[in-house]
């Protein structure tokens, strides 16, 4: 026994019952409506069956109807109750009570309608984007509107119950209204008990959906990164396969960015010493198509003096890249308690420091002079044919900052 997805007006209870009992659907529906007259028994039966009967498994076909239209029958049921009471009893009190029951019916209907989890899936299948105002009302992905509607339905039920009790009360005493309030709470609690599991399931689905969206977002980000960087680089490499230098440059840059993506915690080069050095090394790698083997031990905050040290190191890397004629340059930096040190070493051509013209500013100005201005010192060791090593030292604790002394051998 189950509720069918098609041939239904409200939730398919009548159709399901009819199929199970072998009766015409119309007869079952008429029976339910007639039962409404007996203290809304039809409605209660309908609600009970709705709660108990599972829904038919979905076939391949699209659900046939717009979900929101299922609300209309609740209004019809409510009106039916009103008319029945008015016709049968012809009594002012009973008519008012009938109106109240109608309000209860609509309120309960709203709650039931919202809390059936299968409806969430159904509404997700519809393209409601074409009617934004409808989407705003119907969209059940929004938990807030869901709760709002639930509370709205609840208020309707409560008002109805209070009204019924107040109408049937012998006089309009305060205690009658008080009783009404109590009945209202009992009624609401009843609805809540029945609805709670459905609500719980619904929120579970919402949560799962949100987690799924986050995962999907991460996957999309990764896919975008791979597309933008890896695939483009591979395409460039295929097109430039004869230009070895270019291929190496591309591959190196790609390797670096992938490694950063996979392993490195993101640190801002303007804030951290290690990140600043790595960025400088990356720039030199990209510009001069060499490899900078970077090893940084420890890390510290960046300030003006540290930034000057990084700039001097960068200049040393650029010099090595331009003049040494090698593929690999080593960059080693160590953060100690009282001193930062950076070593840039290549095994390239080398040079005589004394032979460098006074007018050349690279070494004297950008490296030695810069370090001195910031209270550090620079040593350059080089010999023709034996490579070059630039050593940069920067004292960091205040008392150890002394005037730097130039060492050049």
């Amino acid at each position, binding site marked *: 026994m189950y509720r069918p997805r098609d041939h239904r007006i409200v939730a398919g209870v009548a159709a399901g019952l009819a199929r199970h009992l072998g009766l015409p659907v119309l007869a079952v529906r008429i029976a339910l409506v007639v039962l409404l007259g007996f203290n809304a028994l039809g409605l209660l039966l309908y609600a009970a069956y709705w709660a108990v009967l599972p829904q038919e498994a979905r076939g391949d076909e699209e659900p046939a109807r717009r979900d929101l239209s299922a609300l209309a029958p609740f209004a019809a049921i409510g009106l039916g109750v009103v008319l029945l009471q008015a016709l049968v009893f012809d009594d002012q009190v009973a008519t008012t009570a009938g109106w109240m029951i109608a309000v209860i019916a609509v309120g309960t209907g709203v709650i039931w309608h919202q809390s059936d989890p299968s409806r969430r899936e159904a509404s997700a299948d519809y393209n409601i984007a074409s009617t934004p105002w409808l989407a705003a009302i119907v969209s059940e992905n929004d938990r807030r509107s869901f709760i709002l509607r639930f509370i709205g339905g609840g208020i309707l039920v409560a008002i109805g119950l209070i009204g019924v009790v107040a109408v049937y009360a012998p006089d309009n005493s305060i205690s009658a209204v008080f009783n009404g309030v109590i009945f209202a709470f009992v009624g609401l609690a009843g609805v809540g008990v029945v609805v709670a599991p459905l609500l719980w399931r619904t929120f579970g689905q919402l949560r799962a959906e949100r987690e799924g969206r986050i995962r999907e977002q991460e996957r999309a980000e990764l896919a975008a990164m791979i597309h933008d960087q890896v695939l483009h680089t591979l395409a460039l490499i295929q097109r430039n396969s004869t230009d070895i230098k270019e291929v190496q440059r591309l591959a190196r840059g790609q390797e670096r960015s992938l490694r950063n993506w*996979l392993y490195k915690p993101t640190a801002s080069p303007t804030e951290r010493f290690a990140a600043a050095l790595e960025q400088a090394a990356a720039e030199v790698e990209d510009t001069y198509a060499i490899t900078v*083997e970077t*090893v940084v031990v420890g890390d510290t905050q960046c300030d003006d003096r540290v930034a000057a040290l990084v700039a001097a190191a960068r200049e040393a890397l650029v010099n090595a890249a331009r003049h040494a004629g090698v593929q690999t340059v080593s960059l080693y930096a160590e953060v100690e308690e009282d001193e930062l040190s950076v*070593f840039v070493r290549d095994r390239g051509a080398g040079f005589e420091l004394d032979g460098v013209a006074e007018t050349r500013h690279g070494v004297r100005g950008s490296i030695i002079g810069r370090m001195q201005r910031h209270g550090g010192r620079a040593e350059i060791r080089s010999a023709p044919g034996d490579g070059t*090593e630039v050593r940069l030292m920067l004292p960091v604790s205040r008392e150890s900052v002394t005037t730097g002394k130039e060492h050049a051998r």
Partner: protein
Amino acid sequence: MTEPMVEPSEAARRLTVFLVDDHAMFRAGVRAELGAHVEVVGEASSVAEAISRIGAIRPDVVLLDVHMPDGGGRAVLESIRRTHPQVKFLALSVSDAAEDVIGLIRAGARGYVTKTISPDELAAAVRRVADGDAVFSPRLAGFVLDAFASRPDVPVADPELDQLTNREREVLRLLARGYAYKEIAKELFISIKTVETHVSNVLRKLQMSNRYELSRWAADRRLV
């Protein structure tokens, strides 16, 4: 197993090397590069294959990849070291993940080099490992310096093992700066043999150190 009679021919014999890597392209490349210097006696692309074949072939040195689909290099190392302690391992990795590489070193690998290493340097590293020496890439040296820096929050159980001497620290610094052994010896006015001793001592301390936190800490810092 070794008879004194065959000593001379043993010395002249070429080094035997076994490759473990799940990338066939990479194995082929290494085989071609190393072929001139050593004898590549076998390859394996999985942990199970490596364990069974290394046990049968008994090469001098195993070049071991860190990342493999079915368990990684560490499983190979731990299994073989139990049965064949004389086989030496050199980790050859493209990985930047500290926990893998340090895990391999602490499990008993004699060194760690990256896959971007030049063929000559790789051949030299294999030879050095076969001679019982340790091989540190600059990155690994940097990591060890960082890990053994005086850090009050790391419990020191055995001061003998858990600290580096000043000399060892100096040697590591020069390694991290890209110096070769020969250059380190010249810089510090010591013999190459002494440099080798220092490096081997550092490796021993790294492998036997009681710093349980070492690997985890390194992984947190993404140091290697």
